[in-house]
């Protein structure tokens, strides 16, 4: 599954401070969503959420050729939100993102909190806000639902990608003036693909099982909260990111002021300040020593494994 989407951050690209902060937020929101959906669905929660998450995961395999060997495919936050309501969609996307990280290394483990935040929290909240807003303007008819689906899908991808870009900038991994326009530009195109598939899926569902679309509408208890959060997230990211990227190094400056970048690079504290350690005073020397030590460890284990395997074969045959 080759994907042009760059929403799954691997380990190593976010600083520890950013990763843990986003874990904290994601845990709070997912915990609340679990309670919320439990109240709505009761005992149906586990089978419905589990199978739909598997469905979204499998749905991400469906793609269509765009041009030049690239293909569009589905992330699914918008369609999950429209069908199931925001709280259930948060759970579904959390499961999808977790399985992708735990099993397929599509996204890291330490940064899983950040990936859940981007795709399950930002993706869903923004999709919900956009969908509700369009429905309020264009009405509940078929046209409103389809336009709402496209807008929700596009915004969920675009704002989630801005969120990824901001996290990279705050971690000191990417400079704002390159990361934000690049992510926003690429995902503005990818978002069109997401939007078209979402519209296709909604059009199919409207003619095959129109009751399912209504299904999502009866759910959003506490929907206003999600709407407001989605609006805030979208506004903050949509306004702050271009600001950060047009004003030269604005965000880096903020990050520097708050010590984010320093903390990302520097150790939290220093033992033995200004003390030259005998033997490892020179970095090159230390690297050579580590190289020798590392090679010795690997060699030792290899020999041990080979030896025990030969022994087993000898005793077995």
């Amino acid at each position, binding site marked *: 599954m080759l994907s042009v989407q760059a929403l799954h951050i691997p380990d190593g690209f976010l600083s520890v401070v950013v990763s843990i902060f986003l874990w904290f937020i994601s845990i709070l929101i997912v915990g609340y969503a679990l309670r919320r959906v439990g109240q709505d669905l009761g005992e149906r929660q586990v089978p419905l959420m*589990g199978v739909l998450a*598997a469905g979204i995961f499998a749905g991400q395999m469906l793609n269509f050729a765009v041009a030049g060997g690239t293909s569009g495919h589905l992330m699914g936050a918008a369609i999950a939100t429209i069908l199931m309501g925001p709280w259930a969609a948060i759970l579904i996307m959390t499961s999808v993102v977790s399985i992708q990280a735990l099993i397929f290394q599509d996204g890291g483990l330490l940064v899983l909190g950040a990936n859940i935040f981007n795709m399950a929290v930002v993706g869903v909240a923004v999709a919900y806000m956009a969908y509700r807003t369009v429905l309020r303007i264009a009405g509940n008819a078929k046209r409103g639902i389809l336009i709402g689906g496209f807008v929700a899908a596009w915004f969920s991808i675009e704002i989630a990608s801005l969120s990824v870009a901001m996290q990279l900038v705050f971690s000191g991994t990417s400079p704002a003036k390159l990361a934000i326009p690049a992510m926003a530009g690429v995902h503005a195109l990818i978002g069109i693909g997401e939007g078209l598939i979402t519209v296709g899926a909604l059009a199919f569902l409207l003619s095959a099982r129109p009751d399912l679309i209504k299904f999502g509408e009866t759910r959003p208890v506490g929907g206003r909260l999600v709407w407001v959060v989605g609006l805030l997230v979208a506004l903050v990211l949509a306004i702050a990111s271009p600001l950060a990227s047009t004003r030269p190094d604005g965000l880096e400056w903020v990050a520097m002021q708050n010590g984010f970048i320093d903390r990302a690079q520097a150790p939290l504290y220093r033992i033995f300040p200004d003390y030259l350690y005998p033997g490892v005073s020179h970095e090159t020397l230390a690297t050579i020593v580590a190289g020798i030590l590392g090679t010795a460890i690997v060699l030792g284990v290899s020999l041990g494994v080979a030896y025990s395997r030969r022994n087993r074969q000898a005793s077995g045959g």
Partner: protein
Amino acid sequence: MHIHFLDPYQRGHSPVHRTDARVKLVLSVAFILTTALIPIGVWPIYVLLFAMVISLVILSGLGVGFVFKRAALAFPFVLAALPLLFTTPGLQLFSLTLGTWEITMTLPGVERFFSIALKSWISVQAAILLTATTQFPDILTAMRAVRVPRLLVAIIGLMWRYLFVLADEALRLIRARSARSGEADVPGHRKGGRISWRAQTAGGMAGNLFIRSIERSERIYVAMLSRGYDGEVRTMPHPKLEVSNWIELIIGGGILILLLVLSLLIWE
């Protein structure tokens, strides 16, 4: 067509396979956390962390090539850090003038870029080692042991169980589409319709998949009810951690803390 190839678990009887999943999950996350905490440019510690992963890979019998190949999957993301080569202020290595653009590569930039790439690569290998040597139900048990909400674990567990079923459904949909997608090789004749039409077809397939998922979940729910499901997720109590598990945890954690302290000593 069944996609069992999705399951990353590699059967084996190595000491790594036999280690308790809880120990492996905690140590893997601790290892990745340690790797993230090591400051930029402390190469000796990177070498030692790499040696640790590779030793365990060899011990597990997975094959270094297998792990390297899978680890390459996370590589495209390195693009995100590429600008660091040129934007980090510091000692200039060389500078290139392309028209109006002047590109300057700096030593701290190179150091940061390769540190991030290397740390990411080492972390991915640790995650691959975990999932390739641990069966997923064991990982779920381990997740419960580290206090992930029981309901969420149950949802993820059910998702895992039906992942292959629904992936098979998706593959059947894709096969049906290709079976009906003839391509006329007429010069000047556009193949496969407009993009929006193709997207709509893919969307219809996705919608179809959701209907199948929802209907399947209803059948599963009824089946669960008929087996006495009352909304409570009941799970087997996990066995107590044995002394040997604690020793593994302490040794693993100790090595990681030692590496962290060493990195702080070397870092300047």
